[in-house]
């Protein structure tokens, strides 16, 4: 073992973390063992090192025992390294003369033998003691934060985050892929459990976004590239052509009335294809921005998206002097600079065709929940009249819960909102049709303010709840009453027998899934995904809107299924986190950059390795130089340098070699 220099004075602390560590690791034994290692002048065990008294202990000891290195063995450095560095700094030492040992996540929580776990803790601590002797004082690296923010996704999460920031005086770019903001919420009829109309509470927020001087709204656009680092992101946004000049369009919609197509003919995306629209259209009456768009796939002035200019262009005539229609528009890209980014890209409803036994696509009267939202909506395709695809009014309706949720064959997670929205739809359908409503559920999950009460209310309204996962929806009849009906075959697990229930309409309560392109978006913004494909938060409890990349935050269903109140709360939190950075003006970064040492031979091997082009060749000195501002500290060049002439702060070769040594010395 390398013997430490004479002047190294290490203080060592092992944390019990209540019982979390102490129940599996003999902390006093670890402290005693480390206490006799060379260079260690002080070794303590303590119940909670991260507590105020724990941190004060470090500060006091630094002064009293003239410590110049500190090692804490506790939880993961990803959780508390920051805390202890601050404590060390408060004690008057450079914060980087500190090393942390992970004996909780990597030891006490994952092992079952106290002796082995204690031995492992000793080994890890020993390695840190040997390593910390090589630690150097380093300056704190500060990065300025550009005050502008990009919000990706214009659903309720993106809208709320953008407004919060804009109202605080920050400049916000809001990018939305669809022609209008509003997301899924704009398509809902009512919201549970209060039954207030979704449009009534969303529309004012949407218009506020459209009119806000601090918000630049780019709908029908998506982010294609992101470069840079926290505080200094350069983002490329692609704007799809609407064939309408947004500045000139007044939203009068006369073009729509005068389109060469007299009647709407094409499936209307906003109404889930239940209604029809023209080639020139506006997604829905409250669409923001209030700007129409032209679908080149079906417009007669195009053929398969290519401009032919063969239509009479009655729309252009109708637009007249406003001259807002521009058939020559092309895809545009814009580059913006922002300091922080909030990703709120939402979810995708489960594809019900993956469960063929529920008959969606084979039986016309099987609907998805989102289709029913439109069907019961007063501004929907049927003006709120529940008419089935075969023209009938339903007398009995089945709502099947957990379609694509809590199922090992599709998605294992609970989608959290389906129980509540199913009950909301049950209420609305009963109100609209007077039909008998049957809910088929596994468990009713109503954990929210007023949610359980809503369930009680539904029971009182006479809505039926049958506990059992539906086996199939079919149309084979066993009795004359079943002829021409859809039959639900289900095991009623409370009654204990298999039932057949004939209905006219089936509603599938589809679960929530990550967006189809969530993996691409994740890569774009350098985030991680959980196994199910939702974006991964930095910490499930303590950093729920942060990601592993500084300055990038997440909000809403892109992080996991949640309802509107939770989404709005999370969006506010993400906006606040962004403002913390903006108002502070800078962020302290790990000073883990690489640097060139004088013995560089100028072989240039390192230059092509750097993905950030931080390394250049200086012709006068014939040596490589590293631009510290561009270096992100991965250390790839350090490992590759054939002459060992590149160092990396915090991860020096001698630090790592001594850690290896410490791990393997008995």
């Amino acid at each position, binding site marked *: 073992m390398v013997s430490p220099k004479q002047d190294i004075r290490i203080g060592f602390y092992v944390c019990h973390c209540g019982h979390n560590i102490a129940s599996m690791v003999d902390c006093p034994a670890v402290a005693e063992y480390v206490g006799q290692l060379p260079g260690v002048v002080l070794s303590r065990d303590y119940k909670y090192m991260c507590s105020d008294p724990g941190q004060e202990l470090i500060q006091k000891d630094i002064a009293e025992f003239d410590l110049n290195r500190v090692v804490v063995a506790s939880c993961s450095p990803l959780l508390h390294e920051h805390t202890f560095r601050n404590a060390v700094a408060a004690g008057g030492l450079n914060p980087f003369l500190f090393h942390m040992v992970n004996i909780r996540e990597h030891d006490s929580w*994952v092992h079952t033998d106290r002796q082995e776990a204690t031995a492992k803790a000793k080994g890890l601590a020993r390695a840190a003691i040997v390593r910390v002797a090589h630690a150097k004082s380093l300056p704190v690296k500060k990065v300025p934060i550009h005050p502008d923010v990009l919000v990706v996704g214009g659903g309720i999460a993106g809208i709320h985050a953008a407004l919060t920031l804009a109202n605080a005086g920050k400049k916000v770019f809001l990018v939305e892929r669809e022609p209008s903001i509003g997301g899924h919420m704009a398509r809902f009829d009512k919201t549970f459990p209060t039954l207030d109309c979704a449009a009534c509470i969303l529309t004012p927020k949407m218009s506020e976004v459209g009119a806000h001087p601090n918000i630049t709204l780019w709908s029908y656009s998506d982010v294609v590239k992101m470069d840079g680092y926290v505080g200094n992101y350069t983002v490329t946004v692609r704007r799809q052509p609407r064939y309408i000049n947004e500045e000139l369009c007044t939203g009068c919609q006369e073009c729509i009335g005068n389109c060469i197509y007299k009647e709407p003919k094409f499936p209307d995306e906003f109404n889930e294809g239940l209604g029809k629209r023209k080639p020139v259209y506006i997604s829905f009456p409250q669409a923001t921005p209030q700007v129409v768009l032209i679908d080149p796939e079906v417009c007669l002035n195009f053929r398969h998206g290519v401009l032919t200019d063969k239509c009479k262009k009655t729309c252009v005539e109708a637009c007249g002097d406003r001259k807002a229609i521009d058939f020559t528009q092309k895809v545009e890209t814009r580059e913006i600079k922002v300091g922080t980014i909030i990703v709120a890209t939402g979810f995708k409803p489960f594809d019900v065709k993956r469960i063929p036994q529920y008959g969606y696509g084979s039986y016309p009267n099987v609907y998805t929940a989102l289709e029913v939202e439109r069907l019961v909506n007063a501004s929907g395709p049927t003006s709120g009249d529940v008419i089935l695809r075969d023209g009938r009014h339903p007398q009995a309706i089945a709502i099947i819960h957990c379609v694509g949720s809590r199922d090992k064959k599709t998605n294992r997670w609970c989608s959290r909102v389906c129980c509540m929205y199913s009950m909301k739809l049950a209420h609305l359908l009963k109100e609209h049709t007077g039909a008998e409503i049957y809910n088929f559920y596994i468990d009713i999950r109503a954990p929210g303010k007023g949610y359980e009460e809503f369930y009680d209310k539904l029971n009182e309204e006479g809505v039926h709840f049958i506990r059992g996962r539906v086996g199939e929806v079919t149309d084979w009849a066993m009795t004359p009453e079943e002829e021409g009906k859809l039959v639900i075959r289900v095991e009623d697990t409370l009654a204990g027998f298999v039932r057949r229930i004939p209905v006219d309409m089936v509603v599938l309560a589809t679960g929530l899934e990550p967006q189809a392109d969530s993996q691409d978006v994740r890569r774009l913004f350098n985030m991680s995904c959980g196994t199910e494909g939702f974006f991964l938060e930095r910490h499930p409890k303590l950093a729920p809107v942060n990601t592993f990349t500084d300055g990038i935050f997440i909000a809403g269903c892109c992080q996991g299924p949640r309802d509107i109140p939770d989404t709005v709360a999370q969006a506010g939190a993400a906006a606040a986190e962004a403002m913390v950075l903006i108002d502070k003006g800078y962020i302290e970064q790990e000073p883990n950059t690489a640097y060139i040492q004088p013995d560089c031979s100028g072989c240039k091997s390192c230059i092509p390795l750097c993905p950030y082009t931080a390394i250049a060749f200086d012709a006068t000195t014939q040596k490589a130089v590293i631009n510290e501002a561009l270096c992100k500290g991965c250390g790839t060049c350090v490992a590759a340098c054939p002459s060992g002439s590149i160092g990396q702060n915090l991860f020096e070769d001698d630090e790592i070699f001594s850690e290896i040594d410490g*791990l393997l010395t008995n």
Partner: protein
Amino acid sequence: MSELTSLPKADWTPRIVAFFCNWCTYTAADLAGVSRLKYAPNVRVIRLMCSGRVDPQFVLDALRRGADGVLIGGCHPGDCHYVEGNYKMLRRFQLLHRMLRDMGVAEQRVRLEWISAAEGERVKFVINEMTAQIKALGPLNLPQKFENWDREVIELARHVRQQEEISGVTMPTPAEKEAVHV
């Protein structure tokens, strides 16, 4: 070349040094902890920012100091926090593997794994599998081997000198100190 291993002592258990990247595999190991997954206590993790920082010398040094195995963990291809550090590691790893094979170190002893931040289960699986495999292989005991090899080389040099004395022809020999491992 097959491994020549001495019989393990009764109380021997493998010692494995791991180099985990900060963003994916280290976080996955934290997740395994938070999820209270249980795995073999034989792995000691060294945290690096990126698997691209893993200098092959780290691996060799760990083996030379008595590790029975080395595990390197990085982000999945395409997911590197630093764009492509994991690819750099992969290239180095292939060269390193060839070299280790020539040294007679079994393939299972040095392993490169892509484990994302969400794959706590994978950390458990890999560590358990690797520990079991190395247990079956027995101790590597590279320091002892180095001594044996050094002795062989010195013996060989002595033999060559004897031959020279008999034949009268002098062969250029490497300095003896070069044969000794530092």
